Structures are given as structure tokens and as C-alpha cells.
């Protein structure tokens, strides 16, 4: 099977090279046959890479350790659920996942545009196949997923325990879908710039892909945050880790694009800006992959240090140079057709929002790449931490949330002061109420959080007012009931009201971030069974230690899971019982001994969490297994039990666990009582729902009904029959 996999990759590379040639030759000569052949090359690439990916997945599911990557990232004891995900935990597998998703999304894009953008598509095809060829070449020449060893080892090293979390099953495919989808607008932008077809059509064609990329990146970012909160044992959901930042940057520029694209569609303005945002988002997506896969930045995510850095740097340099050259060459075709009519207009708010979003992206870019730049310049790696990011991103985030409330209540083109005053009245009052409530609740000590609550109240009221007025207008026009009018309003204006729902989600999410980061209570200390501590208004009692052998509650394949039962009370009343544990995994490393290897892998925290709509109580434990009493079991076991008797080795681990339960040493605990963390996940779900509404195409019948009155009115003006 490995031979078939290698052959598939070679064939994929050949298809890419052929497809690039066919598409460019077809574009040059205008011969339809070559253009079609170039397009088919993308479909063929998808087919061949699907085969390659299926071979790799099958190898992981069958635990075929003759594949080097399977032996390095899976094992017989890895649960089946995680064996499937282990394929993309490896360097090689993730490159294959990237190329495979690229081929699938590219096929979809080219299929949907097969009768449109006839001049642009061949160049877009060549660019997409160029990306496909790049990643396939990396797998053929640098990091093949189909390298084999004979004879195959009896067992593998196992999946990194940190990755054994449900979020990690979905996080990489979501992020990579976002990255690969971001290259589609880039490819079409390059095609539009080369051909000079920079009018409305190409922009309309890429909008959905830009939105889908934004949506997938958002889901990936949120899943990553959830994983960090539930798995990493530090209690946070965002640490300004370079790899987190790498996915956030294209999301920010993608958000800016989704707003500014509307200005070009409606007013023919910001053409240079929009095409630059498309190119920047695609390039940032490639740079995100570079950060994770090149091993250039040391981070918890950059598991695989590799030799892929130089090819990626060359690709990024080519992308930047080509983008700048093309935009400069076509700047005469990218002149704005209009100017802003008024500073009190939605266009003006969108421009402001774009400035803030790109400003945020720049800050994060600088904070992420500064360590690299400083190391290159001085030889010493300087790093910037969360406080540095917070001082710039917090004020920008406040402005951004406020703008997301102002935008919906301001009309396109121009709004009169009287109408603006009327539209702003209720949201402003809501913000003032939030200010008063916050001040009364003691939030004045945290002005940043209080400001965010006020901005969020403004947004929620502004959007609520929009839904209310829109529904009322529809009810006044027809005989619809309130709910029917609301549904019809959203169905007929999916982009507008889907976008408003996204704004609600963002406001809810930021309320969660502000509250949980500003008003949390934290405690780190050592406790013995029976001892109690206070965490804000909560009292926590370490009731008893726990130990599970071979059956950890989180089903992650831990050999030994040591934890604690905690009783949490508030004002004497029981709140919850928590069971944080720490999983110890088999390292499969014989140098650690016949007993030691069973618990020699990287230990991972499984947090004890009680989540609620208003507060989370979070706990993590770090048991002390290094006491002389406990280590004696390992030392003696290693000395007396042969490797060929793993059952006896496990028996020693069981004895050790029993000793721990009978004579528990003090354990280190980390407690957090954080308000409104659930609002972050809820806000993310609302954003997802709004994004799907905006993305989902309206049925053709609805589109015809919506356009018919306008078309008929215009046709009467022209004195001819017209159909929508």
C-alpha cells in the first residue's frame, strides 16, 4: 500500500505540472480543450490525493507500523477515535491533509465557476495547481507520509497525549479548510489582475469562498481555544501563542475583506484595498502553515521541527513579490469609481472597521514575527508576552465591538443627523444602563471590562432594534405574523441579517472574554486529603485521591490516571463535585525500563470543570509521583521484571497506584473561578450560525421573487419587458 501511496503522490505532482501547463497554454491560445483539460487536472488531483489520504488513514486505523509515520504517531493502545486523527498530527500527514483539502475545495470552486469568469479561471487554475504542486513536492522530496521500515516495529510511539482531545480531532481539518479556502480568492485575484478583469464578476465569485474560509478559520480557532481551556492545564483559552496568532491573522483580514467587499460591490470603491486584502489573507494563510510546519517558532503547537522552512520562505517571497507587482501593474484599473458621500454612512463605518481590523492584524503580526526578526538581526531571541499584546489589542477590540453596533444602525450612502439620533438613542441608553449596573456591581475597578460591557450592550440593543424594525416593517407591508415576518426578513436578506447575528455573537464572545479575564479568582497550592482552601467566594475540600488503571475517564488511553475528588461549596451550600486527574501514558521507550515506560510518556491534565451560564469552576491537579516510596516500585520493577512480561509490569503500576491511594502525598492544585466563560463558546456558536445564514444561498425561487419587483420597475422605465 505504501508503494501505491508514493505512486499517488508522484502522479499528483505530475498532474499539477501538467495542469499548470495546460491551463496557461489554454489561456494563451484560447483553446477550450486545453482550458478544460487544465480544469480536469484539478479534479484528477482531488481523486489521486483522496486515494493517498485514504491509504494513510487505513494504515493508521490498521496500526500498520511498517509506515514510519504510523509508528511515530500511533500505537496499539491509542484509542481508535484518536488513531484516525493521528494522521494529521504528523508533519507528513498534515501536509497531505493540506494538499487534499486544497484539491477538494479547488475542485468545488472550479466546478461552480465552470461557466463563468472564462478569462480569469485558467490563471486561477494554474495558481491553485501551483499550491497543490508545492505541497505535493514537499511530500515527494522532503517529508513523505509513505516512508516504510522493514521489519515493522511491534508497536508505535503513540499519539502525543496532549492531542487526545475531541477538539483536536476537528481543529486541524477546520483550520486547514480555512487556510486552503483562503487560497481560492487569492488564485482568482491573481487571475483577475493578470487578465485585467477586475470588475464586479470576480468579486462576486470569490465572496462565498472568502466567507467559507472565514467561517472555517473561526471554528478552528474556537476549537483550539476550547482545547487549550480543557486540556492544557493552565486554565486559559488564549495565550497569544504564535500558532494561535497565525490562524487569527488571516481571520482578521478576512473579516475586513467581508466588510469592504460590500463597498466595492455597491460603490465601486476600495478596489486596491480589496484585492490587497484578498492577496494578504491568502498569503497569511500560507504563512500560518509555515509557522506550524517549519518549526521556526518554538511553541506548544510546533511539534515537528522540520527542514521545510526554506521552501516555504521561497513560496511566501514569491507570493508577496507577485502580489505587489500585479497590483502596481493594474493600479490604473483599480481606481475608485466614487468617493464617500458622507462620514455618517455605513461605508465610512466599514472603512473604520477595516482600519481597526488591519491594525489588530499588524500588531499581532509584529508580536508574532518580532522574535524571529530580532533573532535574525541580533542572534538573540526576544519574545513578547500576553501583556504586550493586551496593551494594543484591548483598546482596538473595544473600538471594533463598538463599530459592530454602529454599522447596522447607519444607512448606506448617507444618514441624516436626525435619523441617526433616533437610531442611536436606545442602544446608547442600553450602554448607559450597562455602565450603571457595572458600576453598582463593582466593575469600576476594571475599566476595560466595564467599557466592553457597555459596548456589547450597545451592539446587542442596536441589532435587536434592527430585527424589531425590520420585522415590524414586513408586518406593516403584508399580513404576516411576527415570527413569519422575522423568518421572511432573514430569508430574503441573508447577508445582512446573517451578518447582524455574527455581530451579536462577537459581542457575546467579548463579554465572556472581558468578564472571565478581569473578574476571575485563581489559586495554586498544595493540599492533602481533608484540607480546604478558598477561591473567591468558593471553598474547595480535597476529599480523597483517585486512581484508574488502564481505564481513564476521558478515554484517552492513559495507562494510569491519578486524580482527586473535590467538594466545592459556596456560603456553606454544595455547588459541585469535581474530579480532576492527570493521565500518565506509555512512552514505548525501552530505556525507561519494563515498568517505567508505562508511565514514562508526557503526562496530561484532564481538568475537573463545572461549567454554568454565569460561572465556571475549573480545577487541575498535579500529583506527586516522585516520592521515594512510589519511585521504589518503578526502580524495583525495572530491575526484576523482564520486558516480555508486560502484564507483570502493569501489576507493579497497580501496586504503585494502590500505595498512592493508601498513603497519598500532598498534590499540587490549580483552581479558577471564572465568570461567563460559557459566553465565549455560546458567542462562537452564534457567530457560526450567523455565518452559515450569510453563506447559505437563497433558493432560486426566493431570489427571483426578491429581484422581480426591482427588475419590473426598471423595465417599465426602459419601456421594454424584463424578467428577473
Amino acid at each position: 500500500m505504501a508503494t501505491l501511496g508514493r505512486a499517488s503522490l508522484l502522479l499528483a505532482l505530475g498532474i499539477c505540472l501538467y495542469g499548470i501547463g495546460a491551463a496557461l497554454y489554454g489561456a494563451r491560445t484560447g483553446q477550450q480543450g486545453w482550458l478544460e483539460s487544465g480544469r480536469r487536472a484539478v479534479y484528477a488531483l482531488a481523486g489521486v490525493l483522496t486515494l493517498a489520504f485514504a491509504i494513510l488513514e487505513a494504515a493508521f486505523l490498521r496500526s500498520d507500523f511498517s509506515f514510519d509515520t504510523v509508528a511515530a504517531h500511533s500505537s496499539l493502545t491509542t484509542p481508535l477515535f484518536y488513531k484516525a486523527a493521528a494522521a494529521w498530527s504528523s508533519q507528513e500527514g498534515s501536509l497531505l491533509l493540506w494538499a487534499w483539502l486544497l484539491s477538494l475545495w479547488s475542485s468545488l470552486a472550479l466546478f461552480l465557476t465552470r461557466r463563468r469568469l472564462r478569462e480569469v479561471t485558467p490563471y486561477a487554475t494554474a495558481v491553485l495547481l501551483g499550491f497543490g504542486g508545492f505541497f505535493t513536492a514537499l511530500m515527494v522530496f522532503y517529508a513523505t507520509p509513505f516512508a516504510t521500515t522493514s521489519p515493522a516495529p511491534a508497536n508505535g510511539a503513540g499519539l502525543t497525549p496532549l492531542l487526545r482531545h475531541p477538539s483536536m480531532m476537528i481543529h486541524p481539518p477546520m483550520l486547514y479548510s480555512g487556510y486552503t479556502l483562503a487560497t481560492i480568492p487569492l488564485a482568482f485575484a491573481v487571475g483577475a489582475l493578470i487578465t485585467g478583469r477586475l470588475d464586479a464578476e470576480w468579486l462576486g465569485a470569490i465572496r462565498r469562498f472568502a466567507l467559507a474560509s472565514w467561517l472555517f478559520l473561526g471554528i478552528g480557532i474556537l476549537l483550539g481555544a476550547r482545547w487549550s481551556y480543557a486540556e492544557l492545564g493552565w486554565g486559559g483559552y488564549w495565550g497569544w501563542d504564535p500558532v494561535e496568532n497565525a490562524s487569527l491573522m488571516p481571520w482578521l483580514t478576512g473579516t475586513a475583506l467581508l466588510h469592504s467587499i460590500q463597498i466595492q460591490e455597491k460603490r465601486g470603491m476600495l478596489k486596491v484595498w480589496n484585492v490587497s486584502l484578498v492577496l494578504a489573507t491568502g498569503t497569511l494563510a500560507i504563512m500560518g502553515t509555515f509557522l506550524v510546519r517549519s518549526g521556526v517558532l518554538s511553541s506548544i503547537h510546533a511539534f515537528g521541527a522540520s527542514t521545510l522552512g526554506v521552501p516555504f520562505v521561497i513560496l511566501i517571497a514569491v507570493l508577496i513579490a507577485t502580489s505587489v507587482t500585479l497590483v502596481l501593474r493594474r493600479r490604473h484599473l483599480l481606481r475608485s469609481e466614487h468617493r464617500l458621500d458622507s462620514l455618517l454612512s455605513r461605508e465610512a463605518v466599514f472603512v473604520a472597521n477595516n482600519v481597526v481590523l488591519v491594525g489588530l492584524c499588524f500588531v499581532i503580526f509584529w508580536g508574532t514575527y518580532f522574535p524571529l526578526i530580532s533573532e535574525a538581526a541580533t542572534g538573540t531571541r526576544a519574545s513578547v508576552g500576553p501583556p504586550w499584546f493586551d496593551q494594543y489589542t484591548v483598546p482596538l477590540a473595544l473600538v471594533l465591538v463598538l463599530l459592530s453596533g454602529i454599522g447596522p444602525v447607519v444607512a448606506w450612502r448617507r444618514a441624516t443627523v436626525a435619523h441617526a439620533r433616533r437610531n442611536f438613542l436606545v442602544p446608547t441608553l442600553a450602554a448607559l444602563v450597562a455602565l450603571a449596573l457595572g458600576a453598582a456591581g463593582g466593575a469600576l475597578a476594571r475599566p476595560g471590562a466595564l467599557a466592553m460591557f457597555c459596548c456589547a450592550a450597545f451592539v446587542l440593543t442596536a441589532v435587536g432594534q434592527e430585527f424589531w424594525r425590520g420585522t415590524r416593517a414586513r408586518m406593516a407591508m403584508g399580513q404576516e405574523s411576527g415570527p413569519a415576518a422575522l423568518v421572511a426578513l432573514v430569508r430574503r436578506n441573508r447577508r445582512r441579517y446573517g451578518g447582524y447575528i455574527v455581530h451579536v455573537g462577537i459581542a457575546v464572545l467579548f463579554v465572556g472574554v472581558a468578564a472571565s479575564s478581569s473578574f476571575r479568582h485563581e489559586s495554586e497550592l498544595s493540599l492533602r486529603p481533608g484540607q480546604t482552601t478558598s477561591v473567591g467566594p468558593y471553598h474547595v475540600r480535597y476529599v480523597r485521591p483517585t486512581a484508574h488503571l488502564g481505564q481513564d475517564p476521558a478515554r484517552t488511553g492513559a495507562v494510569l490516571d491519578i486524580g482527586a475528588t473535590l467538594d466545592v461549596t459556596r456560603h456553606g451550600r454544595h455547588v459541585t463535585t469535581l474530579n480532576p486527574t492527570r493521565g500518565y501514558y506509555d512512552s514505548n521507550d525501552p530505556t525507561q525500563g519494563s515498568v517505567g515506560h508505562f508511565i514514562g510518556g508526557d503526562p496530561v491534565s484532564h481538568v475537573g470543570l463545572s461549567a454554568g451560564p454565569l460561572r465556571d469552576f475549573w480545577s487541575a491537579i498535579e500529583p506527586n509521583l516522585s516520592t521515594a516510596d512510589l519511585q521504589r516500585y518503578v526502580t524495583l520493577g525495572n530491575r526484576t521484571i523482564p520486558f516480555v512480561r508486560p502484564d507483570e509490569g502493569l501489576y507493579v503500576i497497580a501496586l504503585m497506584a494502590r500505595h498512592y491511594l493508601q498513603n497519598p502525598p500532598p498534590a499540587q492544585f490549580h483552581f479558577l473561578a471564572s465568570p461567563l466563560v460559557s459566553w465565549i463558546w455560546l458567542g462562537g456558536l452564534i457567530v457560526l450560525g450567523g455565518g452559515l445564514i450569510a453563506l447559505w444561498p437563497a433558493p432560486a425561487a426566493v431570489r427571483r421573487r426578491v429581484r422581480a419587483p426591482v427588475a419590473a420597475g426598471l423595465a417599465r422605465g426602459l419601456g421594454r419587458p424584463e424578467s428577473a
Partner: protein
Amino acid sequence: MSVWVVVVIALILAAVVAVLAAPVRARRPDRAPGRATGERDRAAGPAWAARADLEAARGAKYREIREAELDFRVGKLSEEDYRAIDATLRAEAVEILRRLDSER
């Protein structure tokens, strides 16, 4: 390398070649004698693209007219502003329709 792997690889290769070569080998039934397909497509290209652009612009203008109406109905625009904006948008739409007519 086992025989069946070689056979499978050969079959995949043959299928890919067939899929890619088919459009290049295919002869168009409406191909005019003495005139290359490419020349005809190239000649038709700019007109086709211009028309597609105008149709996209028409769709965007329709949406803009409807959005202005919605802005007016939900109280974001005064009647005076709405009338002026609507008239401008409709004039721009009519211009696009005229250009589309001339492209036919």
C-alpha cells in the same frame, strides 16, 4: 512491488491520462472549417466577459436598490434622502441595462 500494485498504478495512470486528454482530443461539431477553435474563443472572450461583468453589476445594483428600500422602511433614511438615493440607483441600473442591451 507486487503485481497487483503495478496493475492498480497502471490503471490509475491510464484513467488520469484519459480524463485529461479527452477535452484536448475532442473535436467540436460546430468548428468552422479553416478557423481554429482557439481563435473563435479568443474573439468571443472579451465580449462574453464584459457581459458577465455587466450582469454581475446588474445583480449588485438590484441588491443595492432593495437595501436602500429596507433602510428606508426601518427608519434609517429620511424620505427625502431615500427618494434621492433610489433615483440615483435606478438611473445607474438603467444605464447598466442599456449597456447590456447594446452587448446583445
